[in-house]
């Protein structure tokens, strides 16, 4: 006698398979809802997981670019402040030189003006050796020490920093140079020969203090030198301003990109709450129905009816 009906073990085996599969589906949905992440591990969706890793890398790099941009911005603001001070000193020197160029001035008066110019030169030296946010010489390029000092090889007073400062990466291959070197700010050409503000101030101050007929001529030369110095400083201010604008631009772009990344991270790796809840509800309904029908069917035994 062969049986064509379902055996008891087959019924239970099938029920266990179905119920276990429904339960694990519900559990997966519940996990993704409670964690807010669609992926519990990379193998859930390898492509999305790889994309998420790249996005995380980009996020990390972008965070550091942000720090670098802030550092550059601070240095540029410091440079900008110093440039304004330089411009003030140059303006004052020009005023003094104009007074000294006046033929009615006595030697003693010119000597007084000369002393003031020497004092201005000391201030300019201090300003030129000012420090950036990290404690390095603001106008010294990559110099480990001061920007201006006595050159150890020539013994002359002058620029002792390096030719160019470090460029800071801003991400996507963009860079910004957060500082200017001393010669870029204070160097200029007057009367066909290149000099710098410190040398010009020294020449003018010394000549005025020495007095005599040369003093008035020196004062006239000084006016020309100060005009050239103003041009140089104004140019430097323009450069600093445009670099700060460039920083603003890259920062805006970085913010936009990071927003896009966050959106993509959410799309690729986040849980779509509405559809997940709906699917969970669907699974739960099916699971409850399966459980109820399982209990009903399992209770359906001929033995219950035999007395």
């Amino acid at each position: 006698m062969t049986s064509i009906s379902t055996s008891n073990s087959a019924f239970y085996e099938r029920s266990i398979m179905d119920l276990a599969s429904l339960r694990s589906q519900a559990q997966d949905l519940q996990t993704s809802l409670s964690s807010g992440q669609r992926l519990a591990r990379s193998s859930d969706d390898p492509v999305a997981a790889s994309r998420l890793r790249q996005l995380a890398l980009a996020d990390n790099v972008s965070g550091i670019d942000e720090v670098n941009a802030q550092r550059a911005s601070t240095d540029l603001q410091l440079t900008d402040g110093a440039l304004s001070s330089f411009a003030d000193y140059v303006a004052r020197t020009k005023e003094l030189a104009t007074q000294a160029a006046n033929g009615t001035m006595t030697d003693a008066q010119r000597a007084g003006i000369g002393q003031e110019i020497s004092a201005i030169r000391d201030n300019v030296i201090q300003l030129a050796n000012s420090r950036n946010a990290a404690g390095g010489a603001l106008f010294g390029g990559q110099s480990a020490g001061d920007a201006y000092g006595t050159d150890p090889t020539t013994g002359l007073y002058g620029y002792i920093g390096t030719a160019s400062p470090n460029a800071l990466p801003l991400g996507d291959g963009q860079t910004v140079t957060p500082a200017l070197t001393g010669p870029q700010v204070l160097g200029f050409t007057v009367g066909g020969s290149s000099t710098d503000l410190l040398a010009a101030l020294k020449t003018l101050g010394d000549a005025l203090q020495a007095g005599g007929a040369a003093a008035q001529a020196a004062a006239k030369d000084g006016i020309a030198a100060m005009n050239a110095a103003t041009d140089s400083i104004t140019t430097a201010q323009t450069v600093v301003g445009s670099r700060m604008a460039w920083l603003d631009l890259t920062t805006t772009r970085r913010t936009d990109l990071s927003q896009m990344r966050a959106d993509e991270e959410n799309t690729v790796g986040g849980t779509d709450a509405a559809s997940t809840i709906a699917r969970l509800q669907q699974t739960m309904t099916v699971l409850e129905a399966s459980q109820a029908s399982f209990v009903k069917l399992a209770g359906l035994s001929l033995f219950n009816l035999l007395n």
Partner: protein
Amino acid sequence: MASDLLSIGASGAQAARVALDVTAQNISNASSEGYVRRSVRLAEVSSSGGIGTIGDVSLSGVRVDRVVRNADQFRQAEVRRTGADAARADAEVAGLENIESAVDQSGVYDAMVRFQGSLQQLVGDPTSTSLRANVIEDARTMVGTFNIASTALTSAGQTLQFEATDGVNQVNTLAQELARVNLRLSRAADATSDQTALLDQRDSLLQQISAYSDVNAQINSVDGTVTVRIGGSSGEKLLDGGSAYALSMAVDPTAGTLSFTIAMPTGGTAPVSATGGSLAGKAQALAKLDDVRSRLNGLADSLMSTVNGAQTAGADLNGVAGTPLFSGSGAGGMTLALSNGAGIATAPASALGTPGSRDAGNLNNLRQALATSNPTGGMDALLFDISGTVAGRKVTREALATIAGSARVSLAAQAGVDLDNEAANLIRYQQAFQASGRVMQTAKDIFDTLVAIR
């Protein structure tokens, strides 16, 4: 008179008793693993008339012809085959998931990203001691995560090897058990409850072996003994009659991969190529593990040589030539050689002898070299490879599990016990027993009637 009403009734009652016993046995074993439903086949006992007795009534009742075991060998073979495939896929996925966790959850990728990030941050201020310390600490974390990944891989491999060793022992134990069953089967009387119990045991043992390795079973149609070949129908014999041949396993000392051999009846050993069962799954997982480990070691080595090469080409904070940042080899042997942030060679060789140089030329070279060799990209590719493999194998596993499940259900539907059916049988045989009793009562009444004649 050639027939005897009383003995006919007695034989009917006896047959009904046996049928009731078998039904009760079925009910009590309704959920026993490997139990195959029995039924009783009854046959009439009668003799045809001989010379001179033609037309005579010659009836002798009923007898139990045989206990029928409702097993279908094809479905059983299907359960074994699909079960072996599912077990292989299961073991492989479990092993691969361990490998995935070892590399993915050790956080190597994140640590590599942070290390590169801290180098980028150092560009902002190459002389800052805090940024330098940050680089050293991130490098330390990265070394730690590489070590953890390597250790986790090794321990995943050891677990797999341990489980495979246990599997081989199980196969040998089961094969010996099956050899004993074979011996007893060859002596058991045909179609008895003893034989059916042994056949149940035989099928159950075969199914258990098939979970470890794909076996091919040839069943002797005469006495029900089985010959088992391992690794498909053309494989070597694992079991022949009463002798079982030992399966053994060797672990490659460097790669950690598995190879199986089996003792031959003629002496010596032969290699076994298992394609199903958990042993094959573990062997496949271990082969993948070896691949992953060598790629992880390759990544670690390339990262170390890139960083160390750049380090030695530059000048550190004190203006002396840089020394290697890492030492050792491989992900497991990687160590941090530099513990002081001042030792990071950010300045180019031209700054040798100039302490405190703010020139980040060498640091930029290092970052450029890292961007070219792209170890994070390599790690991403490795993680993608592992997780992609796991995801693909999971799909295979689901498919094989469904196939194996339906094969099991189909066997259970045919060979399992249906309690409703048994309940009906219980009533049927109970009624048969009562009817036979009534027959005996009738025989007694007839006898009494005859005796009462006076």
